Structures are given as structure tokens and as C-alpha cells.
């Protein structure tokens, strides 16, 4: 691996770490699609800021552009508060409008500038590391790396400093208000953090892929843990791991680094979605199947209990009758009766008729009582 490649990799990991911090809180606060809106509209902020301060990556420009994220959220709130459209529509109307304005301004005004449509939708991690930080004729590595490392540290420091406020305002806004923590201040603080991060990541991953960097690792982490601290740590870790894997794929197929990272993030999400020990689809499917069997055994026991007075050899007690009475398939009936027999709940009379054992009777009584 060349030193340039190493720099790209480290930059990618820094971008994912920086994005995971606001992303984790956005997911918890059900603001994933607000992040989508913000990441689109900072484009307009960047174009406008570029017209005022024509220096790409200047801190003043980053901050100026970030204000557009706050404007977006204010616009959505304003639309929502008219009561004429709901939140989803408010988001869906606000951000395309601001984004369109940005795209139009780019194509009309900033033709020759350091902004083009290509950058808008994907950015370019490889290209971004060519911009070097140079002080007094000495090079200090890629500018983007320093910028994103700064944003990561800032995000991390803010999240640690306001850990309590974020937690309470996220999980119990009413309690937050009574404790003197302003939920809307926390809300807009997080919006500003998201905007700054999206603007910072603009040249490396672009306006849209950044949503994935913010949302996918936390959503994946959410499937794995219920502890807030572990969730935050895991979000950052999964982001960095995806960057590593994505970088490797991009290098192999000679494709977009940001796109490859998104692919790995998606693959990781699907894997966890399927296999997460408690929340995964496989575990869920198994649980459902087990519940179905348990329920069926109980049904069988109750069924036999209800008809216990009819005598040992009536139609109701016939093993074949379960298909009619309980609507089970022959195969399922066989499995359930065998299971109940193994557990000592029922006994067979001449193989075809079923009777309850004393254990089975007790269980049926319990089931009916409770």
C-alpha cells in the first residue's frame, strides 16, 4: 500500500468516525430523514458561502454553509406548524427546493469554480487527499484528514460534555424541560453538528453518501445493543470497519471509495439484520416457530382436557381428528403429539387414541386458570 493509499484509508475512517457521532443521536431521535434533508441542502449553503468566501474548505465557509442546515430544519418546522402539511411532506417539499436552488446556482454561476455536479453526488475521497495542508513550506498531509479529524474531535468533545443533556432530551424531553435542559436547544445543537459534519465531509463523500455514513452504522449498532455507551462506541467502530473493507473493495475493483464503503456498510447491516443474536430476523423466525410449537402443545393438552369426560376412545381423542378440530396438517399433528408424549403430557391408548397423563392434566388446569 502506497502512502497515498494509506492516507485515503485513514481519511475514510476519520470521516466515518466523525459522521457516526451525530448520526447515532439522529437515529435515536428518529431524525434519519432530517439528516437526509440537511445533507442535501448544505449544498446550497456551500454554493452561497462560496460566492462570499471563494476559498474552498475555509473554516468560515464551513460554518457559513452549515447555517443552511439549521435554515432547512427551521423551514420544515415552519411548514409543519402551519398544520397544512404533515412532517414527512414538509421534509419532502423543503429540501428538494433548497437543493434545486443549489444545483441551479452551480450550473449558472459557478461553472469554472471548484464545484461541479460530480462532487455533489459522490465527492471523491481519492481526489480530496490531493489537497495538502502546507505551513511554512512543509507539508502536513491531506487537508481533508485534518479537517475531519478536527470535526470528529469537536463532535466527540461536544457529545461527552453534553452527554447528560443529549441523553435526557432524547429519551425524555418532558423531564429535560423540567430539569432546565432546553429540548429545542439540544435539537438545534445536534442539527448544527450534523450540518458542520455534512459540510466537512462534502468533498470526500459528497452530499448524499454522507447520509449512509451517518445513519447505517448506528442503525446496525442498534440491532446489537441496548446500552447507550456501547451503541455509540459500536457506531464509530462499525463505521471505521466499513471504511477499511470499502477501501479494500474500491482498490480491487478500481471504483469509487465512498460507494464501496456504502456497499460494505449495507452488507454489514444485512448480515446483522439476519444474524443478530436477539434482534436478528433468524432469531426472530426461530422464536416465532418455537412459540408456535409451544402454543400448539398447550392447545393439544387443553383440547384433551376439555373432552376428558367423554371416555378414552371417542372421536375427539383420536389422533387423526386433530387435523379437523385444530386445523393442523397431518405432519404438524404428528410432531406436536410426539413432542407432548416425550414431555410426558399425554399417553397413547392403542396408538390412535390420546389421553392426558396426570402431569398433562395439571398443566391444562394451570393454562385454563391463568
Amino acid at each position: 500500500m502506497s502512502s497515498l493509499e494509506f492516507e485515503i484509508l485513514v481519511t475514510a475512517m476519520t470521516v466515518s468516525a466523525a459522521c457516526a457521532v451525530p448520526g447515532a443521536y439522529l437515529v435515536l431521535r428518529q431524525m434519519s430523514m432530517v439528516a437526509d434533508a440537511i445533507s442535501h441542502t448544505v449544498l446550497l449553503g456551500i454554493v452561497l458561502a462560496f460566492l462570499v468566501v471563494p476559498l474552498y474548505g475555509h473554516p468560515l465557509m464551513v460554518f457559513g454553509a452549515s447555517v443552511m442546515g439549521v435554515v432547512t430544519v427551521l423551514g420544515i418546522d415552519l411548514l409543519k406548524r402551519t398544520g397544512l402539511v404533515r412532517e414527512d411532506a414538509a421534509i419532502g417539499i423543503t429540501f428538494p427546493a433548497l437543493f434545486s436552488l443549489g444545483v441551479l446556482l452551480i450550473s449558472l454561476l459557478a461553472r469554472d469554480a471548484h464545484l461541479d455536479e460530480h462532487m455533489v453526488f459522490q465527492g471523491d475521497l481519492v481526489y480530496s487527499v490531493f489537497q495538502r495542508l502546507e505551513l511554512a513550506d512543509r507539508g502536513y498531509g491531506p487537508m481533508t484528514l485534518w479537517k475531519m479529524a478536527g470535526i470528529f474531535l469537536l463532535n466527540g468533545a461536544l457529545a461527552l460534555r453534553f452527554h447528560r443533556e443529549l441523553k435526557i432530551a432524547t429519551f425524555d424531553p418532558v423531564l429535560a424541560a423540567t430539569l432546565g435542559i432546553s429540548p429545542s436547544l439540544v435539537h438545534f445543537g445536534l442539527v448544527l453538528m450534523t450540518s458542520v459534519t455534512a459540510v466537512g465531509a462534502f468533498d470526500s463523500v459528497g452530499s448524499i453518501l454522507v447520509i449512509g455514513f451517518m445513519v447505517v452504522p448506528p442503525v446496525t449498532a442498534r440491532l446489537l445493543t441496548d446500552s447507550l455507551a456501547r451503541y455509540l462506541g459500536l457506531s464509530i467502530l462499525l463505521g471505521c470497519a466499513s471504511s477499511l473493507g470499502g477501501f479494500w473493495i474500491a482498490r480491487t475493483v478500481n471504483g469509487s471509495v465512498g460507494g464501496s464503503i456504502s456497499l460494505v456498510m449495507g452488507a454489514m447491516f444485512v448480515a446483522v439484520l439476519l444474524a443478530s443474536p436477539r434482534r436478528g430476523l433468524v432469531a426472530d423466525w426461530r422464536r416465532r416457530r418455537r412459540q408456535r410449537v409451544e402454543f400448539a402443545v398447550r392447545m393439544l393438552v387443553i383440547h384433551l382436557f376439555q373432552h376428558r369426560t367423554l371416555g378414552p376412545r371417542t372421536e375427539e381423542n383420536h389422533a387423526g381428528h386433530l387435523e379437523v378440530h385444530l386445523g393442523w396438517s397431518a405432519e404438524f399433528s404428528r410432531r406436536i403429539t410426539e413432542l407432548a408424549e416425550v414431555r410426558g403430557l399425554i399417553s397413547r391408548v392403542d396408538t390412535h387414541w390420546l389421553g392426558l397423563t396426570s402431569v398433562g392434566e395439571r398443566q391444562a388446569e394451570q393454562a385454563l386458570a391463568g
Partner: protein
Amino acid sequence: MEAFLQFFNDYTLRNVLLGTAWIGVVSGSLGTFAFLRRQSLLGDVISHATLPGVVLAFLVWQRREIGVLMIGAAGTGLLATALIQVVDTRTNIKRDGAMGVALAVFFGIGVLLLSMIQNLPTASQAGLDKFIFGQAAALVQSDVTVLLAAGGVVLAALLLLWRELKIVTFDPDFARAAGFRVTVLEGGVVTLIVVATVMGLQTVGVILMSAMLIAPAAAARQWTDRLSIMVLVAALVGGTSGAAGAVVSAFGPQIPTGPVVVLVLTALVLVSLFLGRKRGLVWRWHRQRRSRKLADPDTVLGALGALEAAHAGTVRGHPKAVVRMAVGQSAQVGQALAALRQAGLADEHDGDWSLTERGRSEAGRRARDQGG
């Protein structure tokens, strides 16, 4: 003027105009259902998620006719909605998170595939990235034919399933109880949305297509409470915006169609929000102003008297806002207070209003009259 007319006779422009307006009509009528079902952002996810499908279809068939690309786009678009549905119903992840994941991952894969085919020697792949923002000028006659056919199918399905869609949209629980196959119908709606979204990709682009679905419906909602009229108005709004976008972007090759269409749409939404029938913000402000009727001086005199009686000797006066509250929330007391001052019954010091000696006895006399 002649140049202007010639402009409209232009072959390319006629295609573009027809195609874009038609897309507006179809997405507008269909978006109405997404809007009412609070699925406004689903179109956003679907349109982003079509990108990998577009590129894959191109890779497989090595052609870039709109019909071919539509198949791929619909495939990944549907896959994304299925993923959202599974994650939303089967896990602890909320719907917004599921949507964010689907949108970003599918789009990311699309970007990766695009970057990979850019390394391929095939020359005709040029222009595939126009799908991001759309370029209406690239529409040719055969594309328009495909669009007309696809849109016709969508609208026909809409008409055929009108009653079912209406029930599922407004009362899914009742629909289920009444024996409608709600899950199938919901899947049908999503499929139609996918087709409508895919139709707009080439002209409006992946990123802005969601606005084509939602904005016409949001505008139409402000003018009517009837579903049938809403669908018609949304189709009209969508069609008009599409046509306007096509015309404006024809003035220069550097003007992308999608953003122009969206800005026209946004303007129409804003106009509707302000002027919409009954619900419009302008009428609402107007009503609020009128209902805040002027309080009459006698009432204000009584209220001020009651205030002073309640706070006897503790304060020198009461600010206007307090007087207004004493009279009633929405009353305007400014003119009444001025009238009282002119009559020498009340006076103001540093924004605090109090009764004069004469005013106090006048208020007391009236209170007694009313009591007796």
C-alpha cells in the same frame, strides 16, 4: 415572436415538453396517495434506490433506452421498499432509520457501479450519470412513446382500483375488516409509485424525483377536500410544472431540467399554502384579525376598574397586555384606551395604564349599577 413560435415547433422541444409534462401528470396523480398515506419520503428513497438498477440494467443489456433502464430501476426500487418494510415490521429499528439505510446503501452501490463503468471502454455509457439530475433534452421520440405507455398503464390501474385505493388510503383497518386484501393493495400502490418514479429519472433525475410526487399533492390538498378533485389538481400542477421546467431548461444547455421543475413546483406549493381555499394562510390571518375585534371603551373601563380593585394600592398601573387579558384574549384594547384617555377617564405612565379619579368613580358607579 416568430422565433418564439419556431421554438415551439422544434422537434426536440416538443418531445421534451410532452414527456416532462406527462411525467408531471402521472407522478402528480399518484403522489396524491403517497401524500395522504404519509409516505411522502418513500418516493425519495425509491428514486435514490433506482440508481444501481439503472446502471445494472445498462451493464446487462448494454443499451440505454428508457424502457430497458426502467426494468432495472424498478427492480432495485422495489427491493429497497421491501427492505424498509421488513426492517420496519420485524425489528426495533424505526421507519425513518430503515428508510435512511435503504436510501444511502442503494445509492452508494449505484455510485460504485457508475464509477466502475466509467472505466469500461464502452463509449455509450456517457450520459448515464445524467440520471442524477436529469436532462430532458436527451428525450427522443421512442422514449416519449415508452413514457406515454407506462404512464397510461399507471393511470389505468389508478382508475380501475379507485375504490379500493380510496378505502385503503383513508381507513386501512376498515378495509381489512371489509375483506380487502390490504397488503396486496399496499404493495400495488408502492409498485405504481416505483413506476412513476422511474418514469421521471431521465428528465428530472434521481434526487429530485421525490418532489415531483409530493409537491403537486401538497399544493392540491390546499384547494379541496375531495380525493377525485385533489388527484385532478395534482395532475394539473405536476403537468404545468413539468412543461414549465422543460421550456426554461431549453433556453440553455447548462440549465438542468429537474431543479427548474422543482422550483416551479415549490412556487406553486407556496401560492397554494397562502391562498388555498378556506385553509390558506392569508385567509387564516385575515380571519384572525377580524375576530380580534376592537374592545369597546366601556368594557375596558370596567376591566381596568376590576383590575385596580383587585390590586388596590399595590401597583400604580397595568400594562396594555394585562388589560387585554382582563378584557379577553383576542381583543384589541389600544383604541379603547386612547378613547378613555381622551375622555379623561384613564391615563398612561411609562406604558402602565391606570384610571383617573373621575374614571375610578365612573367605573365604580357602573359596577354598582350592574350589581343592582
